[in-house]
C-alpha cells in the first residue's frame, strides 16, 4: 500500500499552500414554495446542501470526500469548481480568491480545474469520436497553436490516460469502447488542458470490479507524477482507504471528520464515521464486523436538527448534543486528524 507516504507528506504539511481551499462554504438550493405557499406568504425555504464546509486539496494530493448519498459531497465538488455558486464562504485557488470570479476570468479558471463524472456512458457525447471528445477542450479554449500541435496534445493526453497507442482509439465512438476505456477517454479529455485540479465524482462506481483498479491507479499515478491535486468523491470507503491520501467524511452538508486516510479508517473518532466503517462488509469471510446500526433514516436537509446534526441518530448522543453544534477539532492520534464531536 503506497497511500501512506503520501498521507504522511500531506499530513505533515509538506505542501504549504493548498492548491484549492474552501472555507465556510455554503450552498443552498431554493425549494419551490408552490403557489399556495406563495399566496400565503410562507417563507421561501431552501435546502442547505452544503452548510459550512472547510476543505482543501494540496498539490499532488488525493483527497477522498466520502458520505452517504445526499450528504452534499457532489455539491461541494461542484462548488469548488465554481459550477454552482456558493451562498457564503470563500474559495481560493492557488492563492487567488476565485469565489466571485466571472466571465473571462471564470473561463480561464475552467481550464485549470476539471471534473470527471460518475457515468462514463453518459459523460461522453455519443456522436463524438474519441478525437473530437478529447480535442473539444482545446478548441473551446483555443489552446492549440495549430493542427499538429492539437493532434500532439490529444495523443499525449490519451496516452497519459493509458490508451496506448492513441491512434487505435482516435476514431472510435463511445459505444465501441468498454466502460473502463470510456472513463479513460473522459480522463484524457480532462487532462488535455493540463489542469491543476481534478474533481472525480464517483469515477469508478459504474465500472465493473475488474477494471476499477486500473482507472483508480491511473488517477493515483497522475497526481504523484505531477502537481495535480485530486478530489475524489465516493461513497465507497474501501476505495477511499486504498487510494486517497486524506479522507473527509461528510454528513448532512458538513464535514464531520477529516484526516489522513489511514487514521480515519483505522482510528475513527466521530460516531458517524465509526458507524459508516462498521457497515462496510469485509472481503474476508472469516472476518466479522459488528455493525453499529444507526437509528432512523438520513434526515431531510431541509430540516437540519439543532445542535449536532448527527445527534438524533447518534448511538452515544447526550443531552448537550442537542444544543452544541460542534466544530472540527483535533482528535485521535494522527497529525491533523480532526472530528466534529463534543465527545472527542
Amino acid at each position: 500500500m503506497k497511500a501512506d507516504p503520501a498521507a504522511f507528506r500531506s499530513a505533515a504539511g509538506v505542501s504549504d499552500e493548498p492548491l484549492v481551499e474552501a472555507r465556510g462554504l455554503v450552498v443552498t438550493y431554493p425549494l419551490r414554495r408552490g403557489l399556495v405557499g406563495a399566496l400565503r406568504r410562507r417563507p421561501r425555504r431552501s435546502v442547505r446542501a452544503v452548510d459550512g464546509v472547510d476543505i482543501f486539496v494540496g498539490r499532488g494530493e488525493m483527497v477522498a470526500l466520502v458520505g452517504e448519498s445526499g450528504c452534499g459531497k457532489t455539491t461541494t465538488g461542484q462548488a469548488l469548481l465554481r459550477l454552482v455558486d456558493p451562498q457564503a464562504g470563500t474559495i481560493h485557488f492557488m492563492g487567488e480568491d476565485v469565489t466571485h470570479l466571472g466571465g473571462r476570468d471564470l473561463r480561464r479558471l475552467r481550464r485549470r480545474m476539471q471534473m470527471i463524472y460518475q457515468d462514463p456512458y453518459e459523460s461522453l457525447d455519443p456522436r463524438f469520436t474519441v478525437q473530437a471528445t478529447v480535442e473539444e477542450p482545446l478548441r473551446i479554449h483555443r489552446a492549440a497553436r495549430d493542427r499538429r500541435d492539437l493532434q500532439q496534445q490529444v495523443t499525449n493526453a490519451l496516452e497519459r490516460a493509458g490508451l496506448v497507442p492513441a491512434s487505435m482509439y482516435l476514431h472510435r465512438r463511445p459505444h465501441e469502447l468498454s466502460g473502463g476505456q470510456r472513463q479513460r477517454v473522459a480522463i484524457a479529455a480532462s487532462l488535455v488542458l493540463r489542469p491543476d485540479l481534478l474533481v472525480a465524482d464517483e469515477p469508478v462506481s459504474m465500472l465493473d470490479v475488474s477494471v476499477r483498479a486500473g482507472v483508480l491507479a491511473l488517477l493515483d499515478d497522475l497526481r504523484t507524477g505531477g502537481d495535480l491535486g485530486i478530489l475524489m468523491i465516493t461513497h465507497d470507503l474501501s476505495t477511499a482507504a486504498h487510494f486517497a491520501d486524506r479522507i473527509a467524511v461528510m454528513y448532512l452538508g458538513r464535514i464531520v471528520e477529516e484526516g489522513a486516510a489511514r487514521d480515519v479508517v483505522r482510528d475513527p473518532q466521530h460516531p458517524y464515521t465509526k458507524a459508516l466503517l462498521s457497515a462496510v462488509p469485509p472481503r474476508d469471510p472469516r472476518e466479522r464486523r459488528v455493525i453499529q446500526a444507526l437509528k432512523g433514516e438520513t434526515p431531510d436537509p431541509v430540516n437540519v436538527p439543532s445542535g449536532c446534526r448527527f445527534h438524533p441518530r447518534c448511538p452515544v448522543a447526550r443531552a448537550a448534543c442537542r444544543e452544541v453544534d460542534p466544530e472540527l477539532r483535533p482528535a485521535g492520534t494522527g497529525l491533523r486528524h480532526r472530528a466534529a464531536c463534543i465527545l472527542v
Partner: protein
Amino acid sequence: MKRGDYVVKRVVFALITIFVAITLNFFLFRVLPGSAVTNIARVPHASPQLIHSLEREFGLDKPKWEQYLLYLDNLAHGNLGISFADQQPVSQHIRQDLANTIPMLSLGTVVAILMGLVSGVVAAWRRGGLGDYASSGVALFLYSFPTQWLGLMLLIFFAGLLPAGGMSNPFAFNQTYVQHLEDLLRHMILPSLTVALTLYGGYTLIVRSAMLETLGEDYVLTARAKGLSNWAVIRRHALRNAMLPTVTLIALGLGSIVGGFILVEVVFSWPGIGQAAYEAVVQRDYPMLQAVFLVLTISVVLFNLLADLLYLKLDPRVSE
C-alpha cells in the same frame, strides 16, 4: 397540502388561460377585415345613416379599450352579443347548439375511448402478432382518413339504412318520449360514428404506445413474478399506468377534436356548435363566431383541467 396546491395551481392556470383567451378573442376579432356593419352591406339599400346607427349600436365608435371593458362587462353578465344573422342573442344560440353537439360528440368520444382502450391494449399485449397488426392497422387507416371524407363515405355506405342528416325526423308528430329518443339516436349514429372512428384510430395508437411503454416497466415483471395472470397484470398494474400518458395526450388532442366535429356537423347537417362556427364564418357573423370560438376554447381549457384533476386521482406522485 401539496395535492391541494396542485389543484389550486391547475385551476388558477386554467383561469388565466381563459382570461387570455377572452382577451385574445376580443382583439383577434377586432383585427378581422371589415367593420361589423359591412356585414349587412349587401342587403339592398343600406344607407350611411343606418351604418352609423349600427356602429353606435355595437359600440364600434368608442375607443378600443372602452370596447374591451364593455366586452368584459357583457361577458360577466353572460351577454355574448347579438348575432348579425338573426339579431338574436348569441348566448341563446350557443346554448342550443351546445345542447345539440354534446350528446352526439360525447357518444362518439366515449365509444372511441372505450374502443381505443380495448384495441390499444390488445395491440400492445399481442405486440408483433396478428392481433397487433389487425388492430393497429385498422386504427392507423381510420386515423389517416380525412374526417369529412370518412363522413361522406359513411353517408354513401349507409344511405337508406340510417338518416343522412339532421337531428331528428321533423315530420314525426305525436311521438312518445321513447320514440323521440329512438329517432334522435338513429340520427346520431352516423355523425357519432364518424367522430368515433376518427378518434378511435388515434386513441388506439396512443393507448398502444403508452401500454407498450408501461409493459416495459419492472413492476410488470414483478407482477408476473407474483403469479398474476396476463390479464390481471394488465388490469391491475399496466392499465392505470398506461392511462397517465393517455389522459394527457387525449387532453392535448381536444383542440383537434373540436376541428373534427365541425367537419362532421357540416357533413351531417348536425345543428351543433361546429356548424354554427361554419355558418358564422360563411356569413361573417362575428359575434357568433367570437362566441363559438370562446366557448370552444374555454371548453378545451376546462377539459384539460379535468384531465389534470383526473391525473391527480390516477397518479399519487403528481404533487412531487
